[in-house]
């Protein structure tokens, strides 16, 4: 069975690689960059898609608030949820603690998977156990139970499989029927 770190990297790296393509297509089409908000949501949507493609054994994806971009993977061996969160977002929450609610708070007992991309497009992951404290109405505050522990860093470039091995369909010109040339149809029709 795959390790939780392998599971996360196996979906986040290709999701980011695909996002880079999507952002480039967006720019080429509109001559205007994709917004940071759109990038964040597209990447999370891609990550969910990559998980569905791979369907790693022993893990499942939570569907709660998926439409809002929440990505939570549950390790079925101990039912521990791992919620994706950017380090920037966590820092904002810590800074604003007590002043505003959060969009996605972790489950009662869970682990946050904290990510950051650097300028060289490397993915940095760390994780920390977390819990909800100070629930007041719909406002909740996240408290890290321990300092985050680094999982590692991975380059996005070259992390995905080549995509040029799509289904191939050789061309048929039908020249042989009209005495134009020798039969040009590929033998592997």
């Amino acid at each position, binding site marked *: 069975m795959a390790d939780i770190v392998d599971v996360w990297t196996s979906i986040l790296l290709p999701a980011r690689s695909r996002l880079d393509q999507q952002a480039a297509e967006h720019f080429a089409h509109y001559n205007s960059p994709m917004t940071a908000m759109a990038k964040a949501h597209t990447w999370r949507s891609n990550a969910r898609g990559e998980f569905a493609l791979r369907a790693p054994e022993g893990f499942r994806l939570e569907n709660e608030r998926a439409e809002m971009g929440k990505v939570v993977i549950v390790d079925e061996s101990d039912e521990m949820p791992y919620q994706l969160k950017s380090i920037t977002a966590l820092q904002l929450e810590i800074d604003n603690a007590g002043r505003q609610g959060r969009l996605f708070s972790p489950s009662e007992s869970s682990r946050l998977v904290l990510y950051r991309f650097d300028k060289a497009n490397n993915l940095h992951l760390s994780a920390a156990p977390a819990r909800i404290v100070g629930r007041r109405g719909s406002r909740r505050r996240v408290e890290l139970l321990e300092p985050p522990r680094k999982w590692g860093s991975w380059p996005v470039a070259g992390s995905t499989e080549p995509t040029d091995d799509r289904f191939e369909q*050789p*061309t048929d010109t039908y020249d042989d029927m*009209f005495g134009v040339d020798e039969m040009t149809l590929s033998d592997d*029709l």
Partner: protein
Amino acid sequence: MTSEPRLAAYRRLEQITQGELAARLGTDRSTVGAIEMGRREMTLDVSNLGYSAERFGAVPSMSEPLHRSRASTRKSARDRAKELLRLGGEVYVELAARHPKVPRPRLQRFPTPESFADVADLAKEIRVGVLEVEEDAPIKNLTSAVERAGIVLVPIVNLPGIDGLSAWVEHADQRVPVIGLNPNVPGDRFRLTVLHEVGHLTMHNTKSDTGESEANHLARTVLIPDEELRELFDRCSPTLRDFVGLKRRWGISVAALIYGARELGLIDDHRYRSLQIQMAPWRRNEPEAFSPVLGGLLPRLVEVSGGPGPVGDQLGISREHIRDITNWSHLRPLDGQGTGGQPVGRLRSVDTGTAT
């Protein structure tokens, strides 16, 4: 040929009313109606429609097309599609007669199957006997294999709701299978539709409760034999990724593979639902998309015969209608005025047949 004059067929191709046709012919609606009903002889001058009088006298007979279309498809769209099949078969027979190497139809009707096992046997026969491809290898260029089996492919463009339809057209003592296809779909859907229609042509005379599922089953089993799907399950408990890999090799949609796996009892209903949920984000655009290979033989026949203009003149058929059965481009000029943008016809000059 039937004794039915081409007047109604022309109207259906043009998607116009009897009154509009009467205006083009400089007569009144009741005269057009009477000719169409057989109550009056066809004596009108049709030269400004782009047809010769001889050609306008009768149309080839054809079987009633079975549609792979949505219920919302308009009747006028279905009628036009049917006439495109008829004209495609007619033109193919006449042009193919000039070139002995152009294939004559190898497809034939088979008895209506009594079970899916019969359909699977028929799929093998079609794969090897009709399409002449290996029994257990992917069919790379399905369009070519089908056209080399003497099946005529014509484009069905800008007719919302129709992915494919097919009919047997009888002309000059020949019976040719003709399939109309919407080119504006992903390649995997195009391939399934082609074989779905081949299934109808070989198995069905009329609509039935099981006809669609039999045609789907045949399409899937021609594209990927059951043994190949079973082999995948012998190796592992496949995830969506494995199905995508199979699509990359066999050129068949993931949705069809998952459906096939359930048909064969390789996955239970729970696993089927789970895979369906995982597929939800790709309902319209599956991963590993590829483009369809559009029909090429009829356009090539027209091309080597001089192009749509000369061929139209030689055969006494509207040049524009020759283009309609050979032009697979979706970029046709549309007249959407006053119809909420719905394609209802084309902007053209009737007397010259030139698109404007």
